[in-house]
């Protein structure tokens, strides 16, 4: 059951879901609307989801510019809220970009993305045609799959993260985000990320005297999830799987100053980039009356990069730390952190 749900979830996320993607009495939407149309629609529909994950994935690396003393360490859990811009709740659909899907009422229209409107009256009607241009059906365009505003009262994607930090020599911290490979029924997931934060203020006497910390942070992390999509009853699907991979890079110049021994105000300026890839690998046989899907039928790649500016504050009570910050960029991110920090 879990395996089935995972299959469904994965396939649904890439919008090629069908309860019976392998079944002979059903066919895949690819077969009807063409691989290119389907891929383009799915890419546009899911873009805010992958952008949101990307921007969230590169957030929360720091809550102070001050580095640990040697052998000092911290463990920090962060909750990121990635705000989806209102313009990305819908995407511009142009009939000229598609062959077999068309908006009925105009040459182009705004259609819901994965976080877009679910209201039927706000979803334009689409026409799907066959190879000869004959209408097969008209239907209300797909709704947003998740109504964030209804679920969490704001159009933002929540993403948790955690990391460990260790003080090395010369006020340089190494930060680690690691999730050992976890195998579960029907799949596996693992994550590995590293960051280095170096205190620059130690090299500038004036800054050191003002008790201002300046640091440079470089960080990279990667997450890979695999889902087994084999159909036990169809040997042709042996080895079928879905793979989701995302990596993020973050380069930041950070400044912070501690007040009254427990309050730290910090800010950062820099650049982040995230890239993701979602693949359906293997053979997915469909009804023999239709053109079969190509081997490895889906390969979605997204990338986003942005300059960004962050501000925040951190409170440290003995070993406990609490922090909040906000990052200004295309997908703005609010972060709350909770952790322990020693030395």
């Amino acid at each position, binding site marked *: 059951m879990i395996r089935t749900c995972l299959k*469904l979830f994965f396939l649904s996320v890439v919008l090629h879901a*069908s309860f019976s993607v392998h079944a002979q009495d*059903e066919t895949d939407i690819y*077969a009807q609307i063409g691989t290119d149309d389907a891929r383009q629609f799915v890419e546009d529909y899911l873009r805010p989801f992958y952008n949101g994950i990307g921007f969230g994935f590169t957030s929360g690396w720091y809550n102070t510019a001050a580095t640990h003393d040697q052998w000092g360490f911290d463990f920090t859990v962060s909750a990121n809220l990635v705000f989806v811009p209102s313009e990305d709740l819908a995407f511009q659909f142009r009939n000229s970009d598609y062959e077999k899907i068309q908006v009925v009422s105009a040459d182009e229209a705004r259609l819901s993305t994965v976080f877009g409107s679910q209201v039927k009256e706000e979803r334009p009607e689409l026409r799907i045609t066959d190879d000869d241009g004959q209408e097969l059906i008209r*239907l209300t365009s797909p709704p947003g799959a998740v109504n964030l505003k209804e679920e969490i009262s704001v159009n933002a994607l929540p993403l948790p993260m955690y990391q460990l930090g260790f003080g090395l020599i010369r006020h340089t911290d190494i930060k680690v985000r690691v999730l050992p490979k976890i195998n579960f029924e029907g799949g596996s997931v693992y994550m590995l990320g590293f960051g280095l934060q170096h205190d620059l203020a130690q090299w500038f006497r004036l800054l050191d005297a003002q008790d201002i910390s300046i640091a440079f942070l470089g960080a990279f992390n990667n997450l890979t999830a695999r889902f087994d999509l084999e159909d036990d009853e169809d040997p042709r699907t042996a080895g079928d799987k879905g793979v989701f991979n995302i990596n993020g890079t973050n380069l930041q110049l950070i400044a912070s100053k501690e007040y009254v021994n427990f309050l730290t105000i910090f800010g950062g300026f820099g650049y982040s980039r995230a890239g993701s890839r979602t693949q359906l690998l293997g053979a997915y046989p469909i009804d023999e009356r239709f053109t079969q899907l190509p081997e490895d039928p889906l390969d979605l790649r997204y990338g986003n990069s942005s300059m960004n500016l962050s501000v925040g504050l951190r409170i440290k009570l003995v070993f406990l730390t609490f922090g909040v910050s906000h990052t200004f960029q295309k997908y703005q991110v609010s972060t709350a952190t909770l952790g322990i920090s020693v030395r």
Partner: protein
Amino acid sequence: MNISQVLLPLLVGLLFTMGCGDQASRFDFSKVIAFEFTRNPQATSYDTLANLDVVNFDDLKAYKKYGEGYRVNQLMYEIVVMEENVADLGAISGTVSISGQEQDLFEISELSISSEGGVLTVSNEMLIALSEEIDRVGVLSVSIHSEADETPASFNFILKLDVTVSVNFDIL
């Protein structure tokens, strides 16, 4: 196999797995469905009565259990002429039973039997009545009367209904 049979499980799967709200489970699916009326080629005047099982029509029955309402948007027709046909001109009219009352549906008084088809002129009130009848009983009882100037009048009349079914996948 048709697109509706593909989209239904696709959408249900999407909605169930993503836990969408009530609004997201609402769709309109529109399809042109066709019913063919055959006639006796040796008769210049001929009546054909048929019950058009709209809700169980192949392309629409997948939505039956989710359907909240049907709407007839337009009526069209097509003439299929067989080789042995010699008739050139004719007339065709249709009546429909609405709540047990026979009502005029359309009339083509001067029909060129070689013509391929077109849109039938039907009032909005009639379209609403047809929609309500489908909502009520799912079936339209239609009678087609055809006239031809000569025999053999070997042609069939195809009545096409552009029908929208409003579905709510949440109603199960």
